[in-house]
């Protein structure tokens, strides 16, 4: 295949990828899109003001670096379209996906030049093309590409892939003729810049230098200026293993730094690490075998590994990983790409599937780690099939792409409709509470807005009954599922008051609050309960709501989230302003950084035109915002209020 043919094939591949993803582009907003994008007032900004771009870029609360590059891209689309639209954002993600695929192809091309220096260039091009196609058509990536907020993972992957490709390209040259200090310096600067850009997309970008070491030890193995350097090889291995030892030392030295985050999780560090050993095999299975029936947005049905033998597959998974790594190292001279694929996969997962107290499972975590596998697969398919003759050499990889593409299309179609997506997820993960919740929530949304979906009275009743049934199923599988209990209470209280005893659900919810560690979803449910109780839509015995709030405050003393719940309840019940402000002031006194509550207090003060305290609260807000992330909101507050300069 000549260069022109290669480009044409790549273009056709890109076109087909777009076609396969096309049905899913019209899909809905999804979970984390809401807090990061839809409920983010900083993304409704005036694009003519330079600083509003800055505050929009820094407006995400995800991750310590705020992921400004990804947020900036969202801001740019919001500015171009006048508002955020899921279709536009998903199309943007798809464009990024194609760019990443090009980089996977480029990386594969450079790597194959090292691994197969004797192979004809046309063949190497073909293998690189397969690698890129397999990666682009991977059905597991649907939950990254069609999930707008996962652009964060894409932006990080984009710059990491670019860094890997550049390094592979330069290092190949250095292996043959060495490098000048200027070349080394330049490479260091470029790679540092790419690492920085990747990290500003998502913190995983910081893994780029570690991934470069994976390239170093698996492909180049100390080759420098046409010679083998044992020192360089050893240095590569030492640097590759160093972060593991440093991480361990840090954990021993300051365990609270990491372990503190597990206070809000229902698993421990050890349990997380043991579970990930199994989970990484599950991801691998989904990547290799496009079993879309096992894929999904929710994987909370995953059984946690409580010990090495609970379940016994934990020990097996761990042993299998050790074995695989050992085999890959042992075969590194014959199968360098195997070692590379294993290292890229494991190191690429090391941040989100490692010791950090993050949620257990997300498919988008495979976006970059799968690149090494794609390169390996492209090469293995091409190399293995090539021996059978020229026709199978093309036909078999094409067949693979066809299979992947077919499943991609099915999955993409599923993602085109909110209810269908939720139902398929629930079907694929019948034990997933979240999946059931998602279905019930969509049904409730449609029940509450029948005109948007053309529902008649009877259909509405069916939707409501079905939603209630789902919530009940959730309760049966998990008696402490606060979200379901609260929804059951609201439904029975609002629509089945005569036939049911809604107070039972509220009592159960109060028990659940006492027994479980509250998660973000629980707070959202409680927020909805407070509004319902406050507005009088939910019937509760006298003082029931206050009792619940008191119990929550006793269990989580000083919690700003609970304070917000309390405030929202008072707001919904139209409690006197003094009472509302007392709650706010009580919680704001010890916590200077609580910007949301402080804004609420400013609003309350504004209604009373108490400008002195308003200025003081605004000053405290400004003082505790060293990155000036809230500046646009503050600026707007003062430009629209009556408290502009005297």
């Amino acid at each position, binding site marked *: 295949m000549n260069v022109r043919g290669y480009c044409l094939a790549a273009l056709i591949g890109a076109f087909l990828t777009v076609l396969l993803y096309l049905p899913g582009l019209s899909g809905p907003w999804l979970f984390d899109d809401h807090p990061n994008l839809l409920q983010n007032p900083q993304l409704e900004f005036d694009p003519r003001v*330079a600083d509003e771009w800055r505050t929009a870029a820094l407006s995400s609360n995800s991750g310590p670096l705020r992921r400004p590059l990804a947020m900036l891209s969202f801001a740019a689309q919001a500015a171009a379209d006048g508002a955020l639209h899921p279709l536009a954002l998903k199309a943007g993600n798809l464009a990024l996906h194609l760019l990443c695929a090009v980089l996977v192809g480029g990386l594969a091309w450079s790597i194959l030049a090292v691994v197969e220096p004797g192979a004809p260039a046309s063949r190497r091009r073909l293998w690189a093309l397969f690698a890129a196609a397999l990666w682009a058509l991977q059905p597991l990536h649907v939950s990254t590409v069609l999930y707008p907020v996962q652009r964060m993972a894409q932006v990080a992957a984009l710059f990491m892939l670019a860094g890997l490709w550049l390094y592979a390209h330069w290092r190949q040259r250095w292996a043959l003729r060495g490098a000048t200090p*200027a070349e080394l*310096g*330049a490479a260091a600067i470029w790679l540092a*810049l790419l690492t920085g850009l990747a990290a500003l997309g998502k913190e995983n970008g910081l893994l780029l230098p570690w991934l470069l070491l994976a390239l170093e030890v698996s492909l180049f193995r100390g080759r420098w200026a046409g010679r083998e350097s044992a020192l360089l090889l050893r240095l590569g291995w030492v640097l590759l293993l160093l972060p593991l030892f440093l991480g361990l030392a840090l954990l021993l030295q300051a365990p609270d730094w990491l372990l503190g985050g597990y206070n809000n999780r229902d698993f421990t560090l050890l349990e997380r690490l043991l579970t990930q050993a199994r989970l990484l095999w599950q991801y691998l299975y989904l990547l290799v075998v496009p079993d879309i029936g096992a894929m999904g947005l929710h994987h909370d049905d995953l059984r946690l590994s409580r010990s090495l033998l609970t379940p016994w597959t934990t020990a097996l998974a761990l042993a299998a990983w050790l074995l695989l790594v050992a085999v890959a190292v042992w075969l590194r001279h014959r199968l360098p790409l195997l070692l590379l694929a294993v290292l890229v996969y494991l190191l690429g997962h090391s941040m989100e599937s490692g010791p950090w107290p993050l949620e257990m499972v997300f498919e988008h975590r495979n976006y970059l780690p799968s690149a090494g596998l794609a390169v390996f697969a492209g090469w293995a398919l091409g190399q293995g099939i090539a021996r059978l003759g020229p026709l199978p050499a093309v036909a078999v990889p094409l067949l693979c792409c066809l299979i992947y593409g077919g499943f991609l299309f099915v999955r993409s179609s599923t993602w085109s409709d909110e209810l269908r997506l939720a139902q398929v997820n629930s079907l694929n993960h019948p034990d997933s509470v979240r999946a059931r919740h998602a279905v019930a929530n969509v049904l409730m949304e449609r029940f509450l807005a029948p005109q948007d979906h053309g529902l008649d009275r009877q259909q509405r009743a069916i939707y409501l009954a079905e939603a209630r049934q789902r919530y009940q199923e959730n309760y049966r599988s998990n008696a402490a599922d606060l979200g379901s209990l609260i929804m059951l209470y609201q439904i029975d209280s609002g629509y089945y008051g005569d036939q049911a005893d809604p107070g039972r659900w509220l009592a159960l919810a109060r028990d659940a609050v006492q027994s479980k560690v509250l998660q973000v979803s629980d707070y959202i449910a409680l927020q909805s309960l407070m509004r319902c109780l406050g507005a009088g839509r939910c019937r509760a015995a006298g003082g029931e709501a206050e009792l619940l709030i008191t119990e929550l405050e006793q269990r989580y003393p000083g919690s700003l989230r609970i304070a917000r719940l309390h405030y929202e309840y008072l707001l919904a019940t139209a409690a006197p302003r003094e009472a509302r402000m007392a709650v706010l002031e009580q919680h704001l006194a010890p916590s200077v950084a609580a910007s949301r509550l402080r804004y609420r207090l400013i609003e309350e003060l504004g209604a009373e035109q108490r400008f002195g305290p308003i200025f003081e609260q605004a*000053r405290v807000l400004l003082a505790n915002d060293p990155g*000036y992330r809230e*500046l646009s909101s503050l600026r707007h507050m003062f430009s629209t209020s009556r408290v502009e*300069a005297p």
Partner: protein
Amino acid sequence: MQRAARSWPVALPLLAVLLALTAWLYWPGTSGPPLLDDMSSVLVIDDLQGERERFWDVVLGDGSGPLGRPVTMLSFAVEKLWLDDSLQTSKRVNLVLHLVNGVLVAAIFGVLLAHLAAPAAPILATLLAGAWLLAPLQVSTVLYVVQRMAMLSTTFMLCTLLAWLLWRRGLAAGRLAWHWLALVLLSALVAIFAKENAVVIIPVLLLLEALWFQCRDTQGRVMPRWRRAVHGAIGAGAAGLLLVAAWRWEALAAAFRHRPFSLEERLLTQLRVLWDYVGQLWWPDPQRLGVYHDDFAISHSLTEPLTTLWAAIAWGVVGALTLLALRWRQGRWAALGIAWFLVGHAVEGSVLPLELYFEHRNYFPALGLFLLLGLGLLALMRLGPPMVAPVLTLLAVYVFWLGLQTSPLVQIWSSRPLLAMHHVNGHPGSARANTDMAVLLAGAGALAEARQYSERAFRASSGERDADRALRDLALACLAAVAVAPAESLASGAVNPQRPVSSVTTLLTLVRLLQDNACPGFPRAQFADHMATLFLVDDFERRAAANVYSSLAVLENALGRFEYALEYTEQFLALSPDNTRGQLMKLHFATALGKVAVAEEMIAALQVKQAAGELNVGEQQTLALYTEQP
């Protein structure tokens, strides 16, 4: 040179982008509030379109410096005459000037770096100019209208530099291009009349020649006579300044009597101030940036605070390294960057009894630091061609980062409340910042909170008297439209009656409010009576500064008590003899009281001044009111 020429097609669009970015970032800030000296130098120029005859009064009538800064005042007058009276327009003109300066900086850096045969010199120069344009420290110059004085003087200093570079190109080629030399002299002169500290351009030019060009011709040969002249001028200048300083030391020290620090303390403090400037230019801390730095701790000795010693040692090390570096050609280039920064601060950062810290003082000296940064990057680029692009990209990232620091500051500067909050957050120990916050709160009707900040300002201030605070609290009550109890107004001067008031501004502010009858319920007469018991005394010379008496005369005038007003005016004239404003006031009060002899005496004195051309148009018009027959 060829490589440099190839870079221009990239550098020019890059410069355009940087200028556009700077304009975009700064634009919201042009709608910001007036500050401190804006009131006395800019806002007083109102309705010039209606009174065109006052044009030259405005141009020649500013008292900010010994030369009156007429070039800057001319720019204000022209702007008011041809554009409009708004502060926003003045800020926009400042912004345009900043952009023009950015272009000049890029051109100068381009020529300087091309002389070193720097790879991609135009791009490097443009990015360094971008760093200077977007440095957050410049916000308090560009958006503070009256600092046009510093900006405009820099514009002409940059023109001087550019003309010098063109002149010395001819000199190096064996030609004497007199027209460029004439432009050098003319620009330098105009710069000095824009702001006096532009005089530092002379040593900067000499150092540029000695350290950068090293007195070489186009063939790289030293021009011996030229080198002797340059080195001689530097040596003679330095020796002369040191001699003058030593000879006039007592007089210089005596000029500090109205400052809360001595000459020695100022010099010691500047060692730390200069390091702070360096930090704020290269790695800014935006939270501390602003107009108010009166909380900057004074160095009373080398060990109090101890950081003075570290600062001195650090400057000593820099000095030693610079001297060592003079042995090498590259070292001399670097030495210029350091010398540029220090010499640029020589006027405002040394022996004159000025305030300790102002950010706008870095507008011109900052160029030395960015040149030094450029030389560091150039050293990296010289490692080999592959380093050029990444180093330039790194610099571009740094420039962008500086812009990200500047952007929120500009937004803060666009809002009066946010600016006051920012200042008090960054400088909780600043009397001015706390006073400003108090004024903001009082203006919003929050007197209780305003008084808390007034109290903090009092505690933070080293020289404020109880009466100053009491007067400020009265003014705050007035601003908050709160009626003041008489007892409160009488508190002024209860403590330290020998010299109760130190702040003329506070008194004048209150007097203006009372004059405008903006304080409902305020016992004006009672207050004026109390002031009279404090200030209409025999030893008035020691009681207060001259302007306190002129302010009180204004108050009595508002009350129609011309006897007291005349008495205050006479006290004012006793402390400021021959003051035209005082004489006109005396004429007015004497006429009102029917004291013909006194009035005629004043008319005679003023007519002598008029004949000598010492009265401006406004003063002549006022005098005419009393001399022309009805």
